[in-house]
Structure formats: structure tokens, C-alpha cells
């Protein structure tokens, strides 16, 4: 049974309340959404540009330019920029836009919104400076050192306060499913960040973790896996639940499915971390537990995909004219593929082949480029004309972005699957005498260098798509009317309780 999610999203330009709109909370704060959106576009470009550079450094070592720009220092910069700067700003744009509409109120506190925005950009800049300097904890996606970790904690607390404050002053009784996913995101990211970052400093920018060896490995991948879960999955599902029905002008497929898959997803995901440590010194029972829960995770993940794709039932013809819907469909499809691939890779016998190879790299990019990237692009193209109250500058350019990005992902992931499986098989190959067929590691590297070049081409195509989007964003904003008014909240008749906050 479906429940309508499409609420009236009036962006009426009525002027009668504008003079008091901040005080009496009768208008949405869209300025902060615009800031997050622009930051998403800029950091997306930077993060992916670094990605293309490190993709070049693998087949062509002279691209490692001196001490500060080696692969070893830039790879964490790339992952942090794409996850926390690109995807991070994107989910904040989504959360600030949709939470206000779903709660029919302005964000709880404008100053907190600004502290969140500028604080987060400051953290990104400090990451971009410290990582090339070699200031790193070495823990994947948690490389930033303790002073920056503290800054992240403080900004996150401000964000949480602002978000839960907004829930408190909401004018809609029931929280829509997107908000459930935002709640899970905010709580869990806080727990993960605190848990994994516990360390004792030995210098202004250096520390040793309180965990050692096996325990440190466990905590790291409890964090690492659930950063994927609660920074790159749950907020994007929230984004999907809000923006997809809007763009398709259809209610969400199933309310019941959304309940079942939400609770099972947040419960099961957290157990799956140890699959990153198959066959390592982590005890067997923990690894097996991680594997079993990873396989179980397939179902709630596909619950999300099904709820997304089936929302388009009866609306598939709209894809022809809507670049937004096309991007959402590609995004959700890649979500489905990578959440099938994830459980597959967690199975020990498959992992024995795939682990330590480029198969993993292909897997995460099908998620990051396909799911996170395309959901973000779809949201941006949907938001642009609405936030800046104009038309999208070029629909053709957006379509070009869609195609070059899609082909780019395919080139990327296929080359990485090929490289990963090839090298994995070569590592384990024995000759008839029972000796390693390729005892020299180098042989297995030389074999996949063409795939590294192919990957760089795929990644570059994806980056070109982002450049096309940047042009479109810039030109669309130029078309915008000069007057900047926050849209007045269109309240249902009878709910006159303005300013109850």
C-alpha cells in the first residue's frame, strides 16, 4: 500500500510575510542549500581531478611529482575529498532542503546552519593541506589527525543540534521516511567517528590510537564499512526518498517496504565490517559473523532499490524528457549492482580471489560514481532551477553529462574488474611442478597496466561530465533573477500556529 509523499512544495513569491519571515519562521532558508550545492560541485571537481591524477600515477610513475604529490599521500586526499567534501556537501544540501520542507519549518537556527557550512569547508581545506604534508593516521577514510577530528566532532554536534531542533519545531506530525534515514546518519556517523578516532597525541598533529593490532583493525573496519553505510548509503537513501518522488511526481512505491528495509538496514549493516578482514589475523568467528551479516544485507539494500525503481511505475515514459530521472535511475541501478556485489565479495571464497586486487577498487567506484555521483547530479539538476528560480541553462548539456558519465563509469569498472580478476588469478596460479607460475610479483603488475590506462580514460570521461555540469551550474545561476527571497512556507489552511518555536 502506497502513501503519498508528494507534499505541496510551493515556492510562491508572496510578499506579504517577507518582512518578518526569519522571525516567524514562515520562510525556508534556501541560501544555505545553495552554498552546500555550490560546494558540492567545486569539491566534486577537485576530488575527481585528484582521482584522475592518481589514476595516471599508477601506469606512469613520473606523474608522482616530488615529496608532496606522491600516490601514497594523494590517495587519501582523493578518498576524503570525494567522500566527505563531494558526497558530504551533497547530503547536507539534500538534508537542509528536504528537512525544511518535510517539517514545514525553517531550519532551527540560521547561525548553526552557517557554522555547519563554513566549519565543514574549513575541515576540508585542512585535510587538503595536511594530507599532502604526510600528516596522516593511516586509517582509511579516517586519515585526518586528532585536532581535525575534534573539529569534525564539534561541527557534527552543531549539525545534529540544528537538525533535531528542526524536528522539534516541525509542523508536520509524522516524520517522512527520508527523515528516518537522516536520523540514522547523524547518530551513527557520530558514534563511528568517536569510536575510531580515539587516540593519544604525541605531537601537535600526531597521535597513536588507543587500540592495537587486531583490535585496531576491527575498529577501523567497523568504522570504514559503516562510513560507507551511514555516510554514503543512508543519507543518499533519504535523498532518494525525497527527490525521486518529487521528480517523478509519484508517491513512494511502498510504505511498508520502507519500514522493513529501514530497520533491517540500520541493524544489519553495522555487523558487516569484519568482511574487510577475511583470512587475516582477526579471529575466525568475527570474520564469519561479518560475512553472514554481509550476505543478509543484500535484502534490505535491494529493498531500497526496489522502493526507488518501483516508484517510477507508470512514469517510465518521463525518463525520455527528464535528465533528473535518468540520473536517478542510473544511480539506483548502480546501488542495486554494488549492493549485490558487496555481499558477493564478502563471501570468503570470492574474497580470497578479490581481496587486495583492483576488483575492490572497481566495486567502490560502482558505488561512488554510480550511486553517490548520479544521485547527487540528479538532485543538483532538479534543485538548480528551483533554488535560483529560473530555467536550467542547457538541457542538452545535462544530457551530455548523463551519457559521458555513464559510459565513463562502465569503462572504469569493467577495466578494474578485469585487472582485479586477472591479477588475483595470477597470484594464485601454480605450474605443473607445484611452483608459483608467476613467482615475480612484477609480472602480475605489468599484465594489468593497460587496464590502468583504460581506468584513467573512464575516470577522465566522468570528470568531463562534471565539468559540463559546472558550466551548466554557472550559466544557470547567471540567469537567476537578482532578487533573493527565501520561499514562503505554504501552510495548510487552519494550521495558523506560526512562530510556535
Amino acid at each position, binding site marked *: 500500500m502506497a502513501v503519498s509523499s508528494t507534499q505541496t512544495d510551493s515556492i510562491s513569491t508572496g510578499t506579504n510575510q517577507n518582512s518578518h519571515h526569519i522571525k516567524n519562521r514562515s520562510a525556508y532558508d534556501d541560501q544555505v542549500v545553495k552554498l552546500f550545492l555550490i560546494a558540492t560541485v567545486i569539491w566534486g571537481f577537485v576530488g575527481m581531478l585528484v582521482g584522475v591524477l592518481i589514476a595516471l600515477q*599508477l*601506469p606512469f*610513475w613520473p606523474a*608522482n611529482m616530488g*615529496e608532496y604529490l*606522491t*600516490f*601514497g*599521500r594523494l590517495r*587519501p586526499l582523493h578518498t576524503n575529498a570525494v567522500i566527505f567534501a563531494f558526497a558530504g556537501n551533497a547530503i547536507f544540501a539534500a538534508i537542509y532542503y528536504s528537512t525544511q520542507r518535510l517539517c514545514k519549518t525553517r531550519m532551527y537556527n540560521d547561525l548553526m546552519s552557517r557554522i555547519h557550512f563554513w566549519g565543514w569547508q574549513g575541515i576540508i581545506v585542512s585535510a587538503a593541506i595536511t594530507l599532502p604534508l604526510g*600528516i*596522516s*593516521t*593511516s586509517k582509511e577514510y579516517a586519515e585526518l589527525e586528532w585536532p581535525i577530528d575534534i573539529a569534525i566532532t564539534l561541527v557534527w554536534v552543531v549539525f545534529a543540534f540544528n537538525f533535531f531542533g528542526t524536528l*522539534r519545531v516541525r509542523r508536520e*506530525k509524522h516524520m*517522512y521516511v527520508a527523515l*528516518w534515514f537522516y536520523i*540514522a546518519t547523524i*547518530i*551513527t556517523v557520530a*558514534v563511528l567517528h568517536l569510536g575510531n578516532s580515539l587516540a593519544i597525541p*604525541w605531537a601537535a598533529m*600526531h597521535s*597513536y*590510537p*588507543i587500540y*592495537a*593490532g*587486531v*583490535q*585496531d*583493525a*576491527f575498529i577501523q573496519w567497523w568504522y570504514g564499512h559503516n562510513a560507507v553505510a*551511514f555516510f554514503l548509503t543512508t543519507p543518499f537513501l533519504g535523498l532518494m526518498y525525497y527527490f525521486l518522488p518529487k521528480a517523478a511526481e509519484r508517491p513512494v512505491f511502498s*510504505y*511498508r517496504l520502507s519500514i*522493513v528495509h529501514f530497520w533491517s538496514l*540500520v*541493524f544489519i*549493516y*553495522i*555487523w558487516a*565490517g569484519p568482511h574487510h578482514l577475511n583470512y*587475516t*589475523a*582477526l*579471529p575466525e568467528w568475527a570474520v564469519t559473523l*561479518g560475512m553472514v551479516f554481509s550476505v543478509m544485507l543484500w535484502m534490505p539494500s535491494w529493498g531500497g532499490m526496489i522502493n526507488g525503481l518501483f516508484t517510477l511505475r507508470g512514469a517510465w515514459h518521463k525518463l525520455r524528457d527528464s535528465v533528473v530521472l535518468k540520473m536517478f535511475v542510473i544511480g539506483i541501478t548502480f546501488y542495486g549492482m554494488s549492493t549485490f556485489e558487496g555481499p558477493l565479495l564478502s563471501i570468503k571464497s570470492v574474497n*580470497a580471489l578479490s581481496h*587486495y586486487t583492483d576488483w*575492490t*577498487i572497481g566495486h567502490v567506484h560502482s558505488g561512488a560514481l554510480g550511486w553517490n555521483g548520479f544521485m547527487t547530479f540528479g538532485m543538483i539538476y532538479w534543485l538548480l532551477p528551483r533554488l535560483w528560480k529560473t530555467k536550467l541553462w542547457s538541457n542538452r548539456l545535462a544530457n551530455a553529462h548523463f551519457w559521458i558519465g555513464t559510459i565513463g563509469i562502465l569503462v572504469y569498472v569493467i577495466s578494474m574488474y578485469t585487472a582485479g580478476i586477472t591479477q588475483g588469478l595470477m*597470484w*594464485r596460479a601454480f605450474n605443473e611442478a607445484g611452483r*608459483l607460475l608467476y*613467482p615475480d610479483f*612484477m609480472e602480475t*603488475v*605489468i599484465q594489468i597496466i593497460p587496464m590502468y590506462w583504460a581506468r584513467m580514460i573512464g575516470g577522465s570521461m566522468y570528470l568531463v561530465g562534471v565539468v559540463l555540469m559546472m558550466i551548466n551550474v554557472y550559466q544557470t545561476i547567471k540567469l537567476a533573477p537578482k532578487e533573493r527571497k527565501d520561499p514562503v512556507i505554504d501552510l495548510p489552511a487552519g494550521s495558523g500556529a506560526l512562530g510556535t518555536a
Partner: protein
Amino acid sequence: MKRLIKVGGRHRKLEGWPLLFTILTTISVLIGGVVEFIPLVLVKGNVPTISSVKPWTPLELTGRDIYIREGCNNCHSQQIRPFRHELERYGEYSKPGETIYERPFLWGSKRTGPDLARVGGKYPHLWHVRHMEDPRSTSPQSIMPPYAWLLRKELNLSHLPAKMRVLNTMNVPYSAQEMENPVALAQSQAQEIANEVAAQGGPSNLADKEIIALVAYLQRLGTDLNATSAD
């Protein structure tokens, strides 16, 4: 179940109570981590200790931090899996007890280059020096970038006392001598290694350079397992 999830059912009520909703979500996400982590810490048998495994020397610790600074772990794992082909290629598989002084752990997740868990003693010191200066001088087709600055940059030992104190607080069993004068110990080990590098036909001025600390660290990797207890 039906009452719970039907439209207008109990879940619908829950959607009107953000505080309760948040508490239930928090409990849901905490369970898995707690159930997995608590036994890992409390049950000693999960990480059987190996008596020959000793803490890093002050110089090796410094080298390890250089390894982290350069992000070596982005391309080299330090974890040998219990497969025949890995034992053939890299040596004995990695044991939990070998990692008890690893802060942070450096097992890695990608082998763009070979695993280094047992690289210690595999090559002479000079090989490592040459390999860092120009990887293609020792491995002609290598795709590894050169780290020539390690041969030029002065070794900074000033943080050693602070590092040792932090590790000591976390129960790393350093001796009184190591705690009192880690810098002198590091310098004497560095001199020893630098002398061997020179004796092998390498440059003779490396005793106070970063490369020596890195070599000290790499040469220790994986060797404790078979070390005699007299060490």
C-alpha cells in the same frame, strides 16, 4: 507485524515521536558493534601472545612513522593470508600475536606492490636504500615512485621521548633504559645500520638520514616470529 507496519499502525505513531525514534535507531546500530567488539577485547584467546614478539626499537618506531607519512600502506599490505600460494610467495601467514604493538595496524587493503609482512631480512640494507632512491635500479619494471628525499632529509628524533611515553601509557613494555634515553639508542642503531650500508658499497653518510630509520623498520618486519628468545 501487520499491526506494526500497516498504514496508520504502530510505526505510524512512532513517526510522530522523534526522540523515541532516535533512541531506537541508536540501539539498533550499537548492538552489532558491541556484540563483536566486547568478546574481542575480553577473551584473551582471540589474540594468543607470542613470547618472541617484542616492541619496536626507538629507531624502528621512527621508521614506522615515516612509512605512515609516505602512505606506503596505500599500496603494500602487511598481512599474509593462510593460502599455499601466499606462503610460497611471502612466507608464514600472519598471526594475531604478531600485531600487539601495531599502533595503528598497517595491514592495508590493496596490493599494488607486494605484501611486506615478512620483508625483514629478505634483502640487504643497501638494496632498500637503492630501491627507495630509484625503484627501477633494483626492480627494472617497477611502477613505484622514487623516494629520494629519504636519503637527504635529516632524521628527526626529537619526538621520540613523547612517542615512547604515549606507548608506555598504553602498556607497551619498554625497558627503563629505552624510556630514559630513546634518542641515544636510536642513534646507535642508526650508526650500526649505516655502517653496514657503507660496508655493502653504499653511501657512507646516511647515519642521520630518514632512510636509515625506514630500513631499520622494514628489516624488522615479520622477523620476530622466528626470533630466538635471547634477543
